[in-house]
């Protein structure tokens, strides 16, 4: 009996000790003051040399932490106990953070380098007037294809996906807005359409695509396309660049009817302790030379127009990743349609997935 009690007491003490250690660790992550700056970003999404340079120039110590999904980032910040000064969420997450009062208004007078940003990427629906966010990187959604397996077929239109030669050759990303968006775009509707008739029409159109769809997958899409498991994929340009890096036979195209454009943005969350330093950091990143260096490291497209001069022609001249205004005019940012509409999109997507293959 005594022994049992001893075991219990030991276990309880150990548990309490662990709780104590955890809360200590949590509170110490991102302990920002005037001389430190905590950056919360996607993994490997900034050139580490730039962080060193910033530390040397300003004397502010940078603590770099990473997340792997917008949802994980939102949860962590909403839970509190963090002191991130800079966060880099995607466009739709900005909407949520704004609605929940998680962001601090930016002082544009402290970010003079904002003038270098291409106006095409400013003042977008998720943050009009860029009161809370500054574009960091951008990209599109399009079709990646393997010319060897598709015998020189053209993919300049979404319609090409419906070609009967492509039986069981297409991979789609497992994401409702993107896939329903392909249906909407191919019919000439907006990606943010909320008319249920239009959505039903898009759904029926997508059901006709079913025989061509090999699979609807997540991150594995990169590996599968690089290994030539399928000839065609509908992917984000960032993934396309990674796939083409591994298998240079593939090519990427943005269909002419229009498509989606995504942006990752720099924001200052409500939890920030070093707001002054955060503005310094944003301005530092927007400096054309720094921005160019970062772009070469990360490999995504930069919205910084002045940085393009510092980048090699082979990068900036690539119309697939730096499309001209004629293409970008047709691109749309995903708007926040509200939970109800998102629910409707998802239910249509589930139904589309359940639609049986007619071989």
């Amino acid at each position, binding site marked *: 009996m005594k022994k049992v009690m001893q075991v219990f007491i030991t276990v309880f003490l150990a548990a309490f000790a662990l709780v104590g250690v955890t809360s200590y660790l949590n509170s110490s992550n991102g302990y920002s003051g005037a001389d430190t700056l905590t950056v919360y970003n996607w993994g490997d999404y900034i050139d580490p040399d730039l962080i060193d340079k910033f530390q040397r120039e300003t004397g502010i110590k940078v603590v770099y932490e990473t997340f792997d999904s917008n949802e994980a980032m939102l949860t962590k910040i909403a839970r509190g106990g963090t002191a991130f000064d800079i966060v880099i969420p995607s466009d739709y997450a900005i909407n949520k953070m704004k609605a929940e009062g998680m962001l601090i208004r930016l002082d544009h007078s402290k970010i003079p380098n904002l003038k270098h940003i291409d106006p095409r990427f400013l003042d977008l629906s998720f943050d009009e007037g860029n009161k809370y966010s500054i574009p960091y990187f951008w990209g599109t959604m399009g079709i990646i294809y393997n010319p060897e397996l598709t015998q020189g077929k053209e993919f300049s239109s979404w319609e090409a996906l419906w070609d009967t030669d492509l039986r*069981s050759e297409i991979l789609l990303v497992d994401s409702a807005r993107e896939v329903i968006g392909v249906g909407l775009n191919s019919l000439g509707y907006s990606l943010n359409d909320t008319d249920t008739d239009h959505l039903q029409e898009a759904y029926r159109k997508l059901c006709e695509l079913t025989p061509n769809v090999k699979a*609807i*997958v997540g991150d594995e899409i990169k590996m599968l396309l690089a290994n030539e498991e399928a000839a065609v994929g509908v992917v984000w340009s960032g993934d396309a660049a990674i796939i083409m890096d591994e298998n240079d036979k593939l090519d990427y195209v943005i269909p002419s009817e229009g498509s989606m454009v995504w942006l990752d943005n720099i924001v200052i969350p409500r939890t920030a302790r070093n707001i002054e330093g955060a503005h310094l950091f944003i301005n530092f990143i927007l400096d054309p030379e720094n921005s160019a260096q970062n772009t070469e490291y990360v490999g995504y497209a930069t919205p910084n127009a002045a940085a393009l001069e510092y980048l090699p022609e082979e990068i900036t001249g690539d119309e697939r990743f730096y499309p001209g205004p004629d293409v970008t005019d047709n691109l749309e940012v995903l708007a926040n349609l509200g939970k109800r509409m998102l629910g409707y999109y998802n239910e249509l997507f*589930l139904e589309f*997935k359940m639609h049986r293959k007619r071989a």
Partner: protein
Amino acid sequence: MQYRTRNIYLIPYAAWIVLFVIAPIVLIAYYSMFDIDGALTLGNYRRFFTPVYMGMAVRSFWYAFLVTMFSLLVAYPTAYLLTKTKHKQLWLLLMIMPSWMNLLLKAYAFIGMFGTYGPVNALLSAVGIGTKQILFTEFSFIFVAVYIFVPFMILPIFNALDELNPSLVAAARDLGASGWHTFRRVVFPLTINGVKSGCRAVFIPALSLFMITRLIAGNRVITLGTAIEQHFLVTQDWGMGSTIAVFLIIAMGLTMVLTGSGEEGRQHVK
């Protein structure tokens, strides 16, 4: 005094059950009463009985049934042969070992094996059948699911067969029963409880499979597990996700009741 001591022993178990069994179920039932805007409603339950979710439920049951049946077909003879081998514990260990490996790892291995340029297709073209699409089909889904679940079927059947008194089999043969008859009238009825608990151990988790529906079946197989995942992670419609979970819990409870509890069985065998 003794009574009190016993109560102390009970505390950790009671706390465990309340915290990790009862509380989550109550929470799920609670959340299932709210719609996407957080208003109290029974609409989620109505929505469950629409063709979309009903279709998904029927498919989940059908696939879980197929997975259980094929697992049983593989596991019973395997378990039977195992009891006849010399080093049965060693063989059993080898059978069980793959289930210690991470599921994700195994799923990725199958993507490589079943791929267009994988070893299985290489073999198929070598024998002249030619390359087939194996990955992202219902076949591959069921194959991988059976592979994952088979150890959980083998174990209880093996235990039941191992405990079977061999003299009963010998007596049946002495009295003139054929091999098939002995199996049908003696061996199988005496090991039915092993089969039942094996079926439970496979059917219940198979009902809510979700990860391999995407990795192996490429979302060509949609189960209720997929829908729960989507409602919690994408739509943030926790109410609907919880409603589906409530139905799964009910279905699992029914499965338990229909296959009888394992307790009585053990007494028979011993």
